[in-house]
């Protein structure tokens, strides 16, 4: 299935979680995949979603690094 992560279209397997979509994005961009667990993720309406949420075809998710307290 295809979805957008930070405006980039990525393709991932059926049944993937948001976590896997982010891992794929990071792998494509050559970034350190270990950072994925530090991210805050939102859907296209700005609602927070967790990393274990199911990824959906044609959805749009945005991430940013969690701010440290």
């Amino acid at each position, binding site marked *: 299935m295809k979805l957008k992560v930070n405006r980039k279209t990525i393709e991932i397997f059926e*049944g993937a979680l948001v976590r896997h979509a982010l891992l794929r994005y990071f792998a494509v961009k050559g970034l350190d995949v270990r950072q994925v667990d530090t991210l805050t993720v939102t859907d296209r309406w700005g609602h927070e979603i967790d990393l274990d949420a199911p990824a959906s075809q044609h959805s749009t998710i945005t991430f940013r690094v969690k701010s440290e307290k």
Partner: protein
Amino acid sequence: MRKLLFVLLMVPFAFASWAQNKKEVHILSANDMHAAIECFPRLCFVADSLRTLYPDLLILSAGDNRSGDPINDMYEIPAYPMVSLMNIVGFHATTLGNHEFDSGQEGLAKLINMSDFSYLCANAHPAESTGIHIRPYQKFDVGGVSVGIIGAVALGPIGKPESHPKNMTDITFTQPLEALQQYQFLRKECDVVLFLSHIGYEDDVKISASLPWVDLIVGGHSHTQLNGGEIHNGLLITQNVNRLARVTHITLTVENGKVVDKRAENIAIKGVKRENKVVGKLADYFTNNPAFDEVLAVNDKPVSTYEELGCLMTDAYLQAANADISLQNYGGVRYDTLSVRGINVKDVLQLDPFQNNLVEMTVTGNEFIDILKMCFVNDQARFPLISGATAEYVLDDTKQQVKKVVLYGPDGKKLNLKKTYRVVTNNYVQAITPTNRKDEGHDLGIGSAEAIMQFLKAKGHIDYQGKTCVKEVRK
């Protein structure tokens, strides 16, 4: 004067009568709890506290109560701990989430029979032979207010919820909206109509336009954190992220049989400082389950390398998926030694702690080699482990780049790289290897740790000393 006095005397009675027509319904809702056993003592404290104020509190779950912690999911009766804890907290109803099907029809039937709460799902139609007792809807009397609750679960691309198809062979499903529309009569029979939804926030919003006869959607599946709730097409929609980070307290004001006000606020469970001690003891009991010491197989010879243990993992995946080749990345093998002793459930969860699922892809030999090369780079120049084939790597002088890979089948002959093969790996490896393959694969709904446990149990005795699947050729 008398008339004025009469009117003044009647005012309090009129007010009392008007106030009696106004009632409040209080609901505590959770969604996608995914076996967050550790949060139940605090959840129970919250529920008890609210019940003190609102004795008719209705407690609901929007599905996916299980699947997220081996302590729950691998209990002797899979997922029983959550049912037991939900019974004590006093849940009234749940809908079916896609993960409710994870222990198969028999497992679900058993859990439903052990639950004190109802399972509501209008778009799932189990055959009578399954013994699965669900209802499409149920009416609850909440302090004199009639609340009708209907449930529904999201369907995946194959028209069934996202769980392994073998878990639902005798259950048919209809599209949620099509199923829900059959229950419009609830509008006339109930003061409040509530849709307990496991279809996801986006679909909750879409469907709300077609449900003007519904007052409230208690949502789940997409793990969307709403701030209290949102009004769409006149309906209040609520949902939280998973694992009981938050729950929602919903207040509906009902006057003369109609909902005149709807409010929702989040309660952060993780921030609750007090807990129900009895539930705490029960959660501890489940967490310290001696079944995790169950010996699955005996290791006959000591192993001392990641490769040897990785080969055990890939053999297990190969068997679980009945695939041609299996693959495990080096970094996913979490320890490298195993002495001569029994291997128990805890050992497997330590070897494979990530709760990954197996994914199957159909790829050519060349596409598979691209995946191997990418795994090698991702794991800082360490070879991935495979079963069903062996791989011969030619590295460059720096030993950081793979120049060539040759694959050999179990018969020792070179594999045809243009032919396609069914390859199984875990979903982490699938995600971090963005090669140009045609097939991205699909989740098999089988946990990789679960596959290893079943493999060991079937074997009884194992010997992986000296096992190898990798050859490095220096040129």
